[in-house]
């Protein structure tokens, strides 16, 4: 019977293929959607807890959370390093500065300027190497390391999101690789704040005889006393020119994107929120609250998607039923012949059931394949969405 069923299905391979794809997709789409949303939710939820508070300049709250915690999107506003200084001195808080302006790998890898406290606070461990100790060095996340495939030099992207800064691709030397965490840290490049400020153009390297020119109006150093732009800036930092690195202006006035804060007590958290409540330039954000608002949108989108999937499933079911009924009708003559030759109706039913079972099994395999495929494509799809 199975041989007969296979022979028939082989002869109708185009129809079988269509049914397998339709059934497989009809199941794979809602399954993938459920899995992706669940995973997306879990990832966002766990990340939204750490850090529990964010401090940034007033402006878009979502942008601040997305850029500071997930390293995605753009953050137009910034605050000064001076603000971080105030938080750092509070014994009830663990505060970490974040500089989130630049990227490498054609925008795929955000460059995160921070300090060593970040790694402790986020419980990040080194898989190999060491933390950045010198300007121009970096520590990369596991995904970045995988993509680099042993390369130890990363060129920063030319483009500055704000349209100012030196706009030169700096060579960043990889000195450490983080363990995989399945968080946005995996695809980030971590540098010291000094290195980030070097990319900003607050500092530079040039020959001693290069007195340079006046800084442009677009530069962050515009208006800073004694500041200049070198005629020929060096972007490859090594032992030979390390001593030539110098910064202009007051470090406390240098920009950072946000400050991640881990309060040690609930009281400290409450006090911090009250302190910045009426601040005109800065705001405190509880990322978890923003995450819940975000998830409300996601759930709404998912509800719409679910409705679409139900409609698709209904259409697919009708198509499958029509195809099977039509196929049986077209084979009526064959089934009639079998009956004439002494085949019982139960045998005919077994034959049809075998065919249906084979198609169902193939559709399930296709479904598994589609789920894997869609799962793999999910990050790109989520980015598009």
């Amino acid at each position: 019977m199975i041989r007969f069923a296979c022979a028939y299905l082989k002869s109708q391979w185009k129809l079988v293929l269509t049914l397998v794809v339709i059934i497989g997709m009809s199941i794979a789409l809602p399954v993938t959607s459920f899995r992706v949303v669940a995973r997306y939710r879990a990832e966002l939820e766990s990340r939204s807890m750490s850090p529990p508070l964010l401090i940034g300049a007033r402006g878009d709250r979502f942008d601040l959370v997305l850029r500071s915690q997930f390293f995605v999107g753009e953050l137009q506003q910034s605050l000064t390093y001076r603000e971080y200084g105030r938080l750092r001195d509070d014994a009830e808080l663990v505060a970490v500065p974040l500089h989130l302006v630049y990227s490498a790998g054609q925008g795929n890898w955000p460059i995160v300027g921070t300090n060593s406290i970040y790694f402790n606070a986020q419980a990040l461990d080194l898989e190999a190497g060491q933390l950045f100790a010198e300007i121009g060095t970096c520590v990369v996340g596991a995904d970045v390391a995988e993509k680099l495939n042993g390369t130890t030099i990363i060129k920063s992207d030319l483009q500055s999101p704000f349209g100012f800064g030196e706009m030169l691709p700096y060579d960043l030397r990889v000195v450490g690789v983080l363990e995989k965490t399945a968080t946005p840290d995996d695809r980030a490049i971590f540098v010291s704040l000094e290195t980030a400020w070097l990319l900003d153009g607050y500092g530079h390297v040039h020959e001693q005889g290069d007195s340079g020119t006046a800084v442009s109006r677009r530069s962050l150093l515009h208006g800073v006393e004694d500041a200049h732009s070198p005629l020929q800036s060096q972007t490859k930092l090594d032992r030979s020119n390390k001593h030539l690195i110098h910064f202009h202006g007051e470090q406390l006035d240098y920009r950072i994107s946000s400050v991640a804060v881990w309060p040690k007590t609930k009281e400290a958290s409450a006090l911090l929120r009250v302190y910045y409540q009426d601040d005109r330039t800065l705001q405190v954000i509880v990322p978890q609250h923003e995450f819940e608002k975000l998830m409300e949108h996601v759930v709404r989108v998912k509800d719409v998607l679910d409705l679409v999937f139900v409609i698709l499933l209904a259409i697919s079911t009708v198509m499958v039923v029509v195809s099977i009924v039509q196929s049986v009708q077209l084979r009526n003559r064959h089934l009639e012949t079998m009956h004439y030759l002494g085949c019982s109706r139960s045998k005919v039913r077994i034959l049809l059931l075998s065919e249906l079972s084979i198609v169902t099994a193939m559709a399930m395999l296709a479904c598994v394949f589609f789920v894997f495929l869609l799962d793999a494509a999910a990050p790109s799809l989520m980015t598009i969405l």
Partner: protein
Amino acid sequence: MLSVRNMQFRYPHSPFELNVPRFDLEVGQHTAIVGPSGCGKTTFLNLLSGIIPLTAPSTGEVKFRNVVLPTAKSNEMRRFRNNSIGIVFQDFRLIEYLSLKDNILLPVTLSTRTQDDDWEQRADDLIRKVGLEGISDRAVSAMSRGEQQRVAVCRALLRRPTLVFADEPTANLDAKNATDVLDLLFEQANEIDATVVAVTHADKSLSRFPRVLPFGEINTGGNKGPV
């Protein structure tokens, strides 16, 4: 072996009427029933084999050993068709997507109680006898009509039936193929002691049958129109 009594049959909404008061067939009495196209020969053969049920408003009785139509139960009817008779259909009724051998084995595969005999060997023997060895895995859709006719004959003979009903077994075949098919049919039927009942309008093949009955003699009810 086979007897028909007072058979009366008509299709709904058709002037055609079949009336067979008596028809008997003895073992080994190969019979050709002749008549023009549309006179009801195929209908008669289908009534004999139970393909068309002899139920109300039709009347009469077909008796084959202990099987009596139309009173036989469906299980009995299935066994009768599967074990006791072989049918060579006019249009072969082969299943295109199956191979030559699978088509021949069809009555065995479809049966529930046939696993104890070496039917594969029997099928191979038949295939060899009809000269189709070497292509037994070929799909029948890729075969010539002559080859397909031979496959249909092999399928009818596989179960070593007592009765073989052949509906125009040489129709649409050239003279050579027609002779080959009849040779095969009689040779195999004689080998397994089967009786052949064929309906035909081919004059050339009639000389091969020891008994030739014009359909008009069987159907006394008068044909009031084509089937």
